């Protein structure tokens, strides 16, 4: 029980730290730091989505950037149509986040259902390659489909709106992203502790045993895959608003790789692992990116060292081994 307690302390520190740093930046008038914290929160959210299937469910999706990108495009396309007044698929556009988010989650969820239904017929190395391949398919479609910018991507003239806040101000947008991250983390904690979470974790460890007690591994995995895609899609919608840009690069295979890296650096299967991982990754980029243009070489070396010698990630190092009562 002490380990669980320790992990809770680490989680609290991470969640509050992410709030306090931009609060300090607001006081010190450092808007760039607030934007970095927003980026961390959004990348963490995307990682939380992937962590559900990769960390809890053991499914190594190497194409999760596709949901991130699709969420971003939903935000960009709805906002563009709201500006132009031209309906899209017979419906009006919108520049309200509270409208855009459910649509982004719905579209990402439907795509996840299609990709998951096919990919989950396989496992192991096949699953990795196939999720990657389907993500590439959508990526190339986005590049060669000229209606929404093609290769150049789709700029958002203004950020989408949230009631009562001015999202053009860094601090306000941060509060939105932080709030969404915390709500989703809370839901994810409940999900992990639920019957569904138990079934999912059991399938990761021993699918044959799970089937022998009457749990259908395919069905549980598919539902998890869809939820996972929806969460990552929501993160994509937020990212498009942060950078005021939706582009094919959001669903490039390197982005899928980065999402996995975020989870591993933080600690696979840890609730707050993606937050720790996103903070490390963005921190690394900012720190070393300023010192050398070849910072990715160092990132590669660090990552290699973590994989070969320090499995468990940051939360594993701080809070010890994970336990499941």
């Amino acid at each position, binding site marked *: 029980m002490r380990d669980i307690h320790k992990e809770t302390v680490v989680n609290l520190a991470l969640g509050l730290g992410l709030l306090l740093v931009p609060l300090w930046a607001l006081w010190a008038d450092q808007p760039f730091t607030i934007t970095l914290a927003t980026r961390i929160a959004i990348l963490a959210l995307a990682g939380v989505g992937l962590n559900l299937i990769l960390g809890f469910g053991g499914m*190594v999706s190497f194409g999760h950037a596709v949901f991130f990108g699709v969420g971003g495009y939903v935000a960009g396309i709805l906002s563009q149509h709201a500006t132009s007044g031209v309906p899209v698929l017979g419906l009006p556009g919108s520049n309200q986040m509270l409208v855009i988010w459910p649509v982004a989650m719905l579209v990402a969820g439907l795509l996840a259902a299609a990709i998951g239904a096919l990919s989950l017929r396989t496992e192991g*190395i096949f699953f990795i390659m196939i999720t990657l391949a389907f993500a590439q398919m959508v990526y190339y479609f986005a590049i060669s489909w000229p209606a929404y910018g093609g290769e150049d991507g789709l700029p958002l003239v203004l950020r989408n709106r949230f009631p009562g806040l001015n999202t053009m101000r860094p601090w306000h947008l941060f509060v939105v992203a932080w709030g969404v991250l915390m709500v989703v983390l809370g839901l994810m904690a409940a999900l992990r502790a639920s019957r569904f979470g138990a079934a999912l974790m059991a399938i990761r460890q021993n699918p044959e045993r799970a089937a022998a007690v009457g749990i259908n591994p395919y069905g549980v995995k598919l539902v998890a895959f869809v939820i996972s895609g929806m969460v990552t899609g929501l993160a994509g919608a937020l990212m498009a608003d942060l950078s005021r840009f939706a582009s094919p690069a959001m669903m490039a295979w390197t982005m899928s790789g980065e999402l996995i*890296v975020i989870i591993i650096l933080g600690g696979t299967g840890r609730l707050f692992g993606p937050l720790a991982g996103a903070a490390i990754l963005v921190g690394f980029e900012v720190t070393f990116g300023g010192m050398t243009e070849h910072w990715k070489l160092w990132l590669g070396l660090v990552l290699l060292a973590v994989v070969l010698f320090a499995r468990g990630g940051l939360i594993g190092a701080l809070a010890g081994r994970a336990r499941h009562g």
Partner: protein
Amino acid sequence: MTLALIFEQMLNGVQFGLMLFLMSAGLTLVFGVMGLINLAHGSLYMLGAFFCAAGAAATGNFWLGLVAGTAAAAAAGALIEVSVIRRLYTRDHLDQVLATFALILILSEGTKMVFGPFPLYLNVPPILSGTVDLGLTPYSVYRLALIGFGLAVALGLWLLIGKTRLGIRIRAGENDREMIAALGVNIRALYTLVFALGAALAGLAGALVGAVQSVQVGMGEPVLILAFVVIVIGGIGSIKGAMVGALIVGVIDTMGRFLLPRIFASFMEASDASGLGAALASMLIYVVMALVLILRPKGLFPAHA
């Protein structure tokens, strides 16, 4: 649209497919024998192209460049295997993905540091430049040579695996690791050799393709992902599957990009047709992959039936 054009595109498709085969053969061999998923295979392709371009520029001889590219990729492969990859054979796929992803970052940035951030250019050797008349259409001699190269390497690989002692050991390694250990084969050396062989094939492909494309960092990964599609279609671990899958992907992708915009143009406005046609053509091979998965989840030629 004439028969000549279609014929030319078919040849392009076959040529593309054979280059994909060189990439896929190494990937599928490494997975079949060592159970490893290697994302850095695309980096070896890139290294082959860079060392070929640099070697050709330094010596003024394309062929010496080709040898340099292939040898550099093989040496890099052996080095990577000994220093990193061999620690991954007993790890799960997630660790393999991450470690080889890290290798991509290292090799890409390393290449940038050594060769600079700008693309290199590699010229087709004089003897292979120009076109030759194939009756229906004139065709690039170099591309024809690529087809010949690809077929020759495929034949060589088939002989190597089917007819030599090394091939017997490789096939034994696919089936039963303990057995080849019991036979007294040095597994560590065998694995290094297989990995270097796959790397050499990837480097050769990169060097050959480098003369018709620009040689730049990041050139390996799109090809790597296509090679994944190839071996998912063909069946992971099967050389024959890699050959069939590579030709399927090469021909369908090339023909799709050529035909779909023209087909759409026959019933819609030209500007819309080219956009939609190109967008759908870029998805075509993935649709084929999905169909193969639905019908044959383990690929066309499952290696471990």
